[in-house]
């Protein structure tokens, strides 16, 4: 087990090296002078020179990559061109809302979508199944900004139940945070729920046709126990896998949802960086998000052992 985890950890190194190399090369493979592009159209030659020096673009390319990777390993994600603050500091300032939104979305999606999928598989080819599958097809198609604005329109503007936009930090009380995060969470969780419900149903359908399920039924085990203990646990591996795959959807969704709901998180940091062409921030965020995804995939791989004891490393 330990050997497997170590091997799996080592396997993440080449992935992150590729990500770092890609993020680094991006700046150099672009046609034209990256310093001039970042400086913008109305920058003076001395400003462009300043940015070139600040980014180390006047060094040899291999030196630049060496410095870049060295900095990354020390936890230095670069420095914002605009505010002169370390990217890591900016990220820490904006981390809470994004993390709260991501975690609440993850929880809501799993809590609702897994039972939906189980129900659909148990009642396969009935109207319940059709409703769940219909929801799943819609969830993939309706973009998060449309759901978001519809929710704002109905629940904040028309009914006035919830705040229109903005975020209340946890330090102001968790109930305030919950009120501000409820609509964004619902909007963002739709596509994720669609994904999880669909995979849960598919995986459950496969397991429910197994002999041991029929045996359990004929032994007189109650339906709920058969569904949850006998079927769901054995159907869990593909479900957990798809939750990991969906994480990329979640990260992209966070960026857009924060813009819809005016939440000052990492997504807004990204959008502000785009508008100001603050490239080091975008680079830093890519490294960070990719790192988060690789880490979660690692945890998911390890969790397989828990769900399926046949898997031994």
């Amino acid at each position: 087990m330990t050997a497997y985890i170590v091997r799996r950890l080592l396997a993440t190194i080449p992935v992150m090296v590729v990500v770092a190399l890609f993020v680094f090369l991006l700046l150099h493979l672009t046609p034209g002078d990256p310093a001039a592009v970042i400086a913008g159209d109305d920058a003076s030659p001395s400003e462009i020179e300043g940015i070139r020096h600040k980014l180390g673009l006047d060094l040899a390319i291999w030196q630049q990559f060496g410095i870049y990777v060295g900095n990354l390993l020390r936890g230095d994600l670069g420095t914002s061109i605009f505010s002169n603050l370390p990217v890591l500091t900016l990220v820490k300032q904006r981390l809470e809302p994004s993390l709260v939104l991501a975690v609440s979305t993850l929880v809501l999606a799993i809590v609702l979508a897994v039972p939906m999928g189980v129900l659909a598989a148990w009642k396969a080819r009935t109207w319940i199944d059709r409703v769940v599958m219909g929801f799943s097809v819609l969830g993939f198609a309706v973009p998060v900004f449309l759901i978001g604005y519809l929710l704002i329109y109905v629940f904040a503007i028309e009914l006035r139940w919830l705040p229109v936009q903005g975020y209340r930090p946890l330090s102001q009380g968790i109930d305030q945070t919950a009120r501000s995060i409820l609509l964004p969470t619902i909007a963002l969780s739709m596509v994720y729920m669609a994904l999880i419900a669909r995979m849960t149903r598919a995986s459950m359908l496969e397991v429910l046709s197994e002999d041991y399920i029929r045996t359990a039924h004929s032994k007189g085990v109650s339906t709920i126990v058969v569904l949850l203990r006998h079927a769901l646990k054995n159907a869990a591996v593909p479900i957990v896998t798809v939750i990991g795959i969906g994480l990329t959807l979640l990260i992209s969704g966070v960026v857009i949802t924060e813009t819809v709901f005016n939440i000052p998180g990492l997504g807004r940091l990204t959008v502000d960086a785009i508008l100001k062409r603050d490239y080091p921030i975008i680079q830093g965020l890519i490294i960070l998000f990719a790192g988060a995804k690789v880490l979660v995939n690692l945890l998911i791989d390890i969790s397989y052992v828990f769900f399926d004891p046949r898997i031994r490393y």
Partner: protein
Amino acid sequence: MAAVLTVPVPAGSHALDWIRRNPTIVFGSAILGLFVAVALLAPWIAADPLSFDPLNRLKRPSQEFWFGTDQFGRDVYSRVVYGTRISLIVGVSVAVVATVTGLLVGVLCGYYRRLDDIVMRVMDGLMAIPAILLAIALITLMKASLLIVIIAISIPEIPRVVRLVRSVVLSVRGLPYIEAAVASGTRSRIIMTRHILPSTVAPLIVQSTYVCSSAILIEAGLSFLGAGTPPEIPSWGNVLSLGRAFFQISPWIIFFPGLMLAIAVLAINLVGDGLRDSLDPRIARRM
């Protein structure tokens, strides 16, 4: 079950029969056909999407302005109609670019194992980066244009296609007919194009529909965030993006392009689901 209930049909009504067995493909294609018609007929069914009309700013939907007007008095209906062109161009182009590139890389990887090790590490790295961020990074560095947007959305889609093609190639490679081809001295290029390529076609067609709908969504998302299609082009995402500031007083600016986007993506996904069910019965039984 269904086979027993089906009334025998006279020969010659195969088409009708096919339609009855694939309702989702037919329904999705019909909606898509409508979108294509709207895109082609845009100059005849819509007014100039760029003409400013300061007297008619932020007007509600009405007889004159079906979808209302935006803050510059531009007709949202006309902008949405012209936006159909952009979304379809982006969707189809990305699907073609990503599928062709992915097919090429995937077949080579599946066939030449040594190449495979290196290329798959690169693909793993690319896949670790969320698509929208990867596209943002590419677009912010280049002068925004429709071509750049298409390339930037295609790159994060390629690894998924490569993985798919590679897995098909690997599963076909071990089959006796490939061994027979190798044993009889067939050249690698012929084996790849004539013996391996055909089995990738069905899964690729299905995958390309999903790439297409995901590309349309990502383009809208990028434009919405201000990092997509240049703002002077009336794409759905750009219309949405401009509506952001006026959402509380003029929700229609966001509502109509958003709705069109959802319907278009839904139609493409329905075609994809239907194709998957009819082309690949193995998956169809599970999903």
